[in-house]
């Protein structure tokens, strides 16, 4: 048994005081320091992002290259789950040196193998270039994106083969379960989780230990535990990545939860849109059964549990716990009024605890390292770390884990590497369709449950979309509202009818037909929907429009009064023009224009017929990015 303190070294960043001030940011340890073996290993990332860029072919190519050198038994070629740096995919890491290759092509495989095994030349063009200095960085541990993170929930992501339970065990997996079952009573487990201050990472931030305690107190011998992996927020993918990269930590958390409340059946409710995650969880469950972590008499105790996977059928509202329960029961996934809360009456009317993937993945660490350690990270009321899916107009998009209370600016500028193309940051959207857009002036806001809620946004499940000056806030509000409108289950009128009207008003404004009184109408109706809706979907759906009105009102006014879209996004309010002095007459735009609105002989400035133009931006894109075109097309409002 490995009981030394080293195994969780990567999450050891002592980081923060109780009041949220960062005293010391201990960097994430490099791969080399935490490698599972000293044997040379080529690890290919097989998360969804990298798989879609053909990473399995790279794996095969690496295997072939190693075979050709006749080193098949001395060198290992394997794969891991998501490294979180999806933008640089496909990623290959070579251990134990901890060399990080990005944007790898199967053709590069022989070169990489030769560089490490056959005394070949290093391949610096596959190293990650520093975003500012362009200096090639060979080592994982030197990349700022990783250096500035504090990985607790993502502790094993990208480090282990997610389809091999022994990899997870070698990094302390299932030690917490062993400790809980052999040394702790269920009450002690709950007390420890309560003391840690862990709050639900699904968005609402309900104290996890309290939820468990309520369920434990309810009489009844039939109880259920559910892992909520119905990650429906557009722009959020951390639950998917965790399940793909480290399913055992989530399963271990779920088993500990079941032990604490006395449940004998569990479910992992995962979106069907995540086929790889579903497959890896199934494999992990099978392996856990084989090892005696699941099934009858777990680890020799009198505790029994089995866990099944339930695939969600594509309904955003099923992320809401009562809707999720209805869905497992085989019904339409519609929420019901609470109380009674699921902890009292849930699945098949039995007490049920539902926790998010990230909440459950935090549990084993709390048990092994203790509540005090966990509570030392984060702020007064938000303990631990937060995982964000950082996307949008940002240099380093991917999965980011930082201590609660870290200011937005350090997530965006240190970890995220800032805004590309010399653009200015305009807004940061957190919390997906339930959250809001925060302006650049609020970048020093610490990210935790309460600060974000106060600012009119929310933590949500952790999407963080960065927007630059080319993003129109009215259009973004319309996008989120149309999303929630189509995902509304239709049960209660404020949500079903109210959001539809909000979308209509926003459409009207985007189309340049808005009137001044529409802004007031929007606000009034949004507050009505917020107050009157049955579940969190309706109660939070107006947040994007309310926050946009609060911080970006001038943009709404520009649309309504001046009939302009300052970010030149709303099609009805923009026009396209060709600058004759810059047009090289290359005819690229003529070729791509779907409506033949652009005409002109070769080598002479072209003409654009605005009556035919549908403003699809095809010409703009080719003109801007094609080497021989002159960047001559401008969009104006």
């Amino acid at each position, binding site marked *: 048994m490995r009981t030394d303190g080293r195994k969780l070294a990567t999450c050891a960043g002592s980081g923060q005081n109780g009041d949220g001030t960062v005293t010391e940011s201990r960097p994430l340890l490099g791969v080399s320091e935490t490698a599972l073996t000293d044997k040379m290993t080529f690890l290919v990332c097989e998360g*969804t*992002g990298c*798989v*879609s*860029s*053909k990473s399995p072919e790279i794996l095969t190519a690496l295997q072939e290259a190693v075979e050709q050198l006749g080193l098949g038994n001395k060198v290992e070629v394997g794969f891991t789950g998501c490294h979180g740096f*999806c*933008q640089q*995919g496909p990623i290959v890491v070579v251990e134990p040196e901890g060399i990080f290759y990005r*944007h*790898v*092509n199967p*053709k590069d495989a022989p070169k990489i193998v030769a560089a490490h095994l056959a005394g070949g030349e290093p391949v610096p*063009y596959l190293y990650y*270039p520093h975003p500012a200095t*362009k200096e*090639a960085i060979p080592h994982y541990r030197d990349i700022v994106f990783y250096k500035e993170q504090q990985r607790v929930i993502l502790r094993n992501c990208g480090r282990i083969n997610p389809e091999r339970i022994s990899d997870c065990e070698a990094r302390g997996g299932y030690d917490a379960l062993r400790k809980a079952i052999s040394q702790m009573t269920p009450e002690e487990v709950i007390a420890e989780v309560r003391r840690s201050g862990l709050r639900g990472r699904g968005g609402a931030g309900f104290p996890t230990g309290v939820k468990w305690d309520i369920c434990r107190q309810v009489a009844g011998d039939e109880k259920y535990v559910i892992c909520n992996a119905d*990650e*429906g*927020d*557009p*722009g*959020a*993918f951390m639950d*998917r*990545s965790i399940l793909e990269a480290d399913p055992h930590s989530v399963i271990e958390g779920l088993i500990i939860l079941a032990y604490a409340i006395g449940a004998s059946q569990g479910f992992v409710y995962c979106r*069907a*849109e995540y086929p790889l995650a579903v497959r890896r969880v199934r494999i992990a469950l099978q392996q856990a059964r084989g090892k005696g972590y699941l099934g009858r008499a777990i680890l020799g105790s009198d505790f029994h549990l089995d866990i099944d996977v*339930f695939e969600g*059928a*594509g*309904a*955003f509202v099923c992320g809401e716990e009562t809707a999720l329960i209805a*869905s497992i*029961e*085989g*019904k*339409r*996934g*519609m929420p019901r009024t609470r109380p009674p809360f699921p902890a009292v009456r849930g699945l098949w009317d039995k007490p049920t605890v539902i926790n998010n993937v990230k909440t459950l993945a935090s549990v084993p660490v709390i048990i092994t390292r203790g509540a005090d350690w966990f509570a030392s990270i984060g702020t007064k009321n938000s303990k631990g770390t937060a995982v964000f899916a950082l*996307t949008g107009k940002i240099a380093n*998009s991917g999965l980011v884990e930082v201590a609660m209370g870290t200011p937005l600016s350090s997530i965006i500028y240190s970890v995220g590497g800032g805004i*590309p*193309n010399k653009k200015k940051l305009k807004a940061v959207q957190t919390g997906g369709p339930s959250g809001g857009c925060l302006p650049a002036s609020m970048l020093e806001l610490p990210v935790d449950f309460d600060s974000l809620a106060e600012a009119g946004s929310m933590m949500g499940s952790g999407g963080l*979309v960065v927007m630059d000056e080319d*993003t129109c806030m009215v259009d*973004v509000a319309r*996008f*989120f509202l149309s999303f929630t409108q189509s*995902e509304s*289950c239709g049960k209660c009128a404020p949500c079903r009818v109210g959001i539809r009207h909000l979308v209509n008003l926003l459409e009207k404004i985007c189309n340049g037909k808005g009137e001044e009184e529409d802004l007031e109408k929007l606000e009034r109706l949004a507050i009505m929907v917020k107050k009157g809706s049955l579940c969190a979907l309706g109660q939070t759906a107006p947040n994007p429009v309310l926050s946009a009105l609060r911080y970006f009102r001038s943009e709404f006014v520009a649309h309504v009064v001046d009939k302009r879209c300052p970010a030149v996004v709303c099609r009805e309010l923009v026009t396209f023009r060709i600058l004759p002095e810059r047009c090289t007459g290359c005819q690229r735009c003529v070729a*791509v224009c*779907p409506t033949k609105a652009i005409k002109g002989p070769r080598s002479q400035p072209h003409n654009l017929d605005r009556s035919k133009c*549908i403003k*699809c931006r*095809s010409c703009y*894109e*080719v003109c*801007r*990015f094609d080497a021989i075109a002159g960047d001559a097309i401008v969009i104006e409002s």
Partner: protein
Amino acid sequence: MTSHDGISAIRQEFKGEPKDLVPVLQRVQEQDGYLRPDAIRSISRWLKISENEIFGVATFYAQFRFHPPGKHNIKVCMGTACHVVGARNFVEVLKADLNLSPGETTRDGKFSLERVACLGCCALAPVVVVNDEVHGRMNRVKFTELLETLKHTGEPPESEPDDGQQEHADRRPEASDVRRERSER
């Protein structure tokens, strides 16, 4: 078809309780590509749930289809990251070119279109999936080309290598970084 009603094999996998409805529908769709009316009738008798109720449940969830999918099933991701970089263009191209709207299949059965909320590959935005193959960092021009290839070949082509990868072959890392950043706008 495996037997007289086409779901016999699936019956073996479940206990046949009403709570099995959603997984049963998923298995039937996996097998047939969509939910045929006669399959729904068989499920109704087997699980003792009315056909109305089954339709009620099936239409609630975005995953279920009631028409056979096209030979090339195109999924356009409409997540936040994809939206801000112009995912709507792809839906428009399909409407203009093939008169195809989300949820429909073309008359010749070649193409069908689905809008999906988020595929979770936001770093590759905008994303289009053709028959489970992910095409990342699309734009209207690349998409139109992809569509043309699909029309003529019948089989989806290999997705184009990323700009970055092509340039690695050229060994021009510095120029590649500039161009990649531009293309990611």
